[in-house]
């Protein structure tokens, strides 16, 4: 793949993964404590 489109695609993927995860983490921390804790506990609990 040529260098320019490769870099643009790479940058988009980084923004989509690292950027989105970072801002979502911040949004969850700023949301109400009860909902944030429940949301985290729901997905970190052992799968049944």
């Amino acid at each position, binding site marked *: 793949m040529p260098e320019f489109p490769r870099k643009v695609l*790479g940058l988009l993927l980084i923004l989509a993964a*690292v950027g*989105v995860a970072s801002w979502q983490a911040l949004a969850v921390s700023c949301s109400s*404590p009860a909902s944030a804790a429940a949301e*985290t506990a729901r997905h*970190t609990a052992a799968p049944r």
Partner: protein
Amino acid sequence: MIRVLALVAILTAIAVLIFVVRSKLLGSREERRSIPRQPTPATGLLMFLLTVPVLVAAVIAMARGLLVPMIGNAVGYALLVCGAWLLWRGLVAEAAYSHRLVAKTPWPLKAIGGGLIGLGTGLTAWLGVGHHPGIAFAFGLVALLGCRLFYGGDPGEAKRVTAASGLDTTDQVLAALAQAERSIAAVEQSSRDVRQPELNQRLRRVAALAREILTLLEEDPRDLRRARKFLNVYLDGVQRVVEGYARTHQRAASPELDANFRRVLTSIEEVFQEQRQKLLESDIMDLDVQIEVLTSQLKREGLL
């Protein structure tokens, strides 16, 4: 009011973080001079900036007593910052590798950095955000792929050199060049303690000439024996003289010492220029003779 103060504190902390990271990424003046084509700091800064919200999230989660998000964000942030730092070091190593004519295969720092960023992103998405582990894994994978595409891979092969006998002398050449580079850096470091502008300028010229000679030796490192002799005798001698002068000069100013040092520097500069010329003409035999002449001259002056 408290919210405004908190916002100002967070913005100040982010500004300080950006300033510190940027100055670290730019590196020392010597490092920038030895690698002319450094990667742009913005490339490295991007990853550090993207991770800042995770740090803020970890602090907020701690303040609100959310244990799991706090641990997830804190560990995720640590992994992301380590990964960003390794990616930057990988870019610098790649620039040095491209600049050098003889080089070992650098450590796969970009690959390790990308892996840590993928891991940090996945962990943040899982414990910090609360995504399903499968989704968090996808986040990590996309981050890893993005790093691989944006920053590229690590250099794979060493740039080797073989002697006339056919032996691989890459390690010896690299060790000699690294030692010479250290000596030049020590000369530049000591020259900062010399307050006289004229002597300072001469020292800078000597260091620049030494770097040029190193480049020429790197271009044609086949005769390692003579190259090593030049590097050890010349640069070690110059380093000791300059360090000794800088030390003595700080304690007591002496016009006689200054005059002697000026004379030595003048002869070193002249001989270095001749050496560069000789190397350009590939006259290795003359180079050896000149080394002997300078050695005995330095010995006569009591400097070796």
